[in-house]
């Protein structure tokens, strides 16, 4: 009897667990409410900020229009997951909307169920698309079509320890890499042969390289077809146009100071512990550094140092966009998704998301809102980031290089070898150019 009761209790508990689990995630009970599935890639504070926006939408526009958005964290590899579904021909299980990075746009372009923003532009009711930042529209435009809706935007900045600058008698952050090298020599501290305080910490990878290459001259492309934006990128061009050599020549000055740390361990914490005078990091880290440093010392941010003094290109937009799909072949479902996507890029939600996460607003309307001046007065670092993006040419972008992981690994390995002295400038240059081109050629041979 005891045994039977035990089994019954377990079964009852399992049934309760199943139904309890289902209740939280199930579609809304009301048959008149349309459920929109949204996959996002963010964790921690950023995830809470996204969920807050989704809740706000559900409680306002969603309530009026009968739309309920379900926000689902899918890891940081949404593009790969979408690709897997596409490979299996499983269009039904595509989400209605997904947050992806720019590098995933060329793949997404090929999916049958993709609904490019371009197709719905004229039917916008919530968002004025003219208010979107041109850099960010360009970031998610492929083959002359706006594919994704800009959502989170970040860019590379120089973070510096103001107290160390004052102590070394440096009155302004460096404008160029050469100036940065001079500053590193003055800021680094050695104990015998051992460096106990580095002047600069950054690992130069694809993201950093895209900025240093893109910012040269008025603007510059990483590869052919405008860095893969007008057609798939088939080769890198920074070897032919001399921009890679120009960057490496300047970067050699940084390496030669001996006060440059080329690997990133816990860059946020190390900067906060004053182990480095300068670091190059995304604008998205401003909030993290603020919380880590507190009142311990004065620090600030500045635009990314240029390769050549007369460069005008500026910095590339990083971050993510939201792409839409039509898995059910249902125009009304697409319309519901479109309303949600417009909302996410609108001024008020973008201001809120910026305040919660530090991502730069994608909507210029944010700068007209009440409270923005007070916000920037309290948080001048964000103003530097916004100004740096506004001063940048929209053509300066991260490339649509398709095999971005491979390109990242090639650049990272050669730049590390260059910094450690195991490769000369020429070896590093030729290694990056030849290997990137070989990998792109392999890709196009298999996919051409």
């Amino acid at each position, binding site marked *: 009897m005891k045994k039977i009761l035990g089994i019954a209790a377990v079964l009852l508990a399992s049934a309760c667990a199943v139904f309890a689990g289902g209740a939280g995630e199930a579609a809304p009970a009301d048959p008149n409410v349309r459920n929109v599935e949204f996959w996002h890639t963010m964790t921690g504070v950023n995830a809470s900020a996204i969920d807050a926006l989704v809740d706000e939408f559900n409680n306002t526009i969603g309530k009026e229009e009968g739309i309920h958005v379900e926000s689902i964290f899918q890891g940081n590899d949404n593009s790969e997951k979408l690709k897997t579904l596409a490979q299996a021909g499983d269009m039904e299980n595509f989400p209605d909307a997904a947050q992806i990075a720019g590098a995933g746009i060329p793949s997404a372009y090929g999916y049958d169920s993709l609904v490019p923003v371009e197709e719905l532009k004229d039917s916008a009711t919530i968002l004025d698309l003219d208010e979107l930042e041109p850099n960010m529209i360009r970031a998610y435009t492929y083959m002359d079509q706006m594919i994704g809706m800009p959502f989170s935007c970040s860019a590379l900045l120089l973070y510096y320890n103001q107290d160390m600058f004052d102590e070394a008698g440096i009155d302004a952050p460096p404008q160029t890499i050469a100036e940065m090298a001079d500053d590193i020599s003055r800021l680094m501290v050695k104990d015998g042969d051992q460096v106990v305080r580095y002047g600069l910490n950054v690992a130069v990878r694809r993201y950093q390289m895209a900025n240093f290459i893109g910012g040269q001259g008025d603007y510059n492309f990483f590869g052919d077809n405008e860095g893969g934006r007008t057609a798939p990128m088939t080769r890198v061009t920074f070897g032919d146009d001399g921009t890679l050599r120009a960057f490496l020549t300047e970067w050699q000055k940084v390496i030669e100071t001996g006060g440059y740390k080329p690997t990133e361990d816990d860059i946020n914490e190390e900067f906060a512990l004053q*182990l480095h005078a300068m670091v190059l990091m995304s604008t998205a880290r401003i909030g993290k550094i603020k919380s880590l440093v507190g009142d311990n010392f004065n620090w600030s941010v500045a635009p990314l140092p240029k390769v050549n003094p007369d460069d005008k290109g500026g910095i590339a937009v990083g971050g993510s966009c939201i792409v839409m799909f039509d898995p059910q072949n249902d125009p009304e479902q697409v319309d519901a998704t479109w309303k949600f996507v417009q909302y996410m890029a609108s001024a008020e939600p973008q201001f809120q998301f910026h305040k919660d996460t530090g991502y730069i607003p994608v909507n210029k309307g944010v700068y007209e809102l009440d409270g923005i001046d007070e916000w920037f007065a309290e948080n001048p670092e964000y103003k530097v980031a916004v100004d740096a993006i506004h001063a940048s040419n929209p053509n300066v972008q991260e490339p649509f290089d398709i095999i971005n992981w491979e390109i990242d690994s090639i650049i990272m390995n050669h730049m590390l070898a260059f910094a450690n002295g195991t490769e000369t400038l020429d070896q590093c240059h030729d290694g990056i150019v030849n290997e990137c081109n070989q990998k792109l050629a392999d890709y196009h041979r298999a996919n051409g």
Partner: protein
Amino acid sequence: MRKKGLRAAAEPLLYLLPAIIFFIAFTYYPFLKTAISSFFLVDSMGRAKEFVGFENYLRVLATPQFRIAVKNTIVYMILNAPVSILISLILAIIANKPTRSSRVYETMFALTMAISMSVAAMIFRMAYNPSIGALNHILGTRINWLNDPGWAMIAVSVIATWLNIGYNFLFLLAAVRGIDKGLLESAEIDGAGIFRRTLGIIIPMVSPTLFFLVVTQMAKSMMMSSLALIFTNSATLSTTANIDTMISYMYKQAVNNLNYNDGYATAIIAFIMTFILMLISFRFEKKGVHYN
């Protein structure tokens, strides 16, 4: 009568059927498909385009990153399996005699089984930080454990060794406690010290368990990818040293780079190497394992 005989013969097969169906669907079929596809040029959607013979294999074998991944896998296997089993065996011998407090330390020794690999990776990453980590502080060194090509794989192996101790300990404790007490006591009376007893009695008697652990651990080590991917493939934890293993290299080629050509060939090369290793292990079993 004949009917009954047939039923009796079919019955065990029916019991095996669910397992066989799963094996065919999730192991043998994907393996065959991978093996066949590795001889074709495959596009990013996984469609075979043309037969290319051994071209994919030759390209992968000529890639420096893959050769480093092979070296890393072997280093990991050599460091992880024997060291973790040796430590577990020592702990099992120490914990052999059940006492009032043995429950406590048995649980403590086995506790690493309950720790997730990604959590362990986060903990060790903090300890390994060259400037603010505990390890350099304790040792008085300034080694960049996870970013120095010479140290990175050793540092990763230490994490796996630590994590495997709990699992190995449980098996070895059961094996050591299963040895006839009379045998050990008579050896002690005859004047055999702990080392003599360990080498002469304990190790031969637990050799079937040791063999099982060595073989499974070596195969698992050859297939390791999780720690390598955690440390090299994440936005927040990325090391610049090459600590890829064969399987993490395969994963990156196939999933991140959509390069199934290199991915399939790598998978088959990794399988062949592991298979050879298993054959060698089973050859050793005939000589070194005592089943009575």
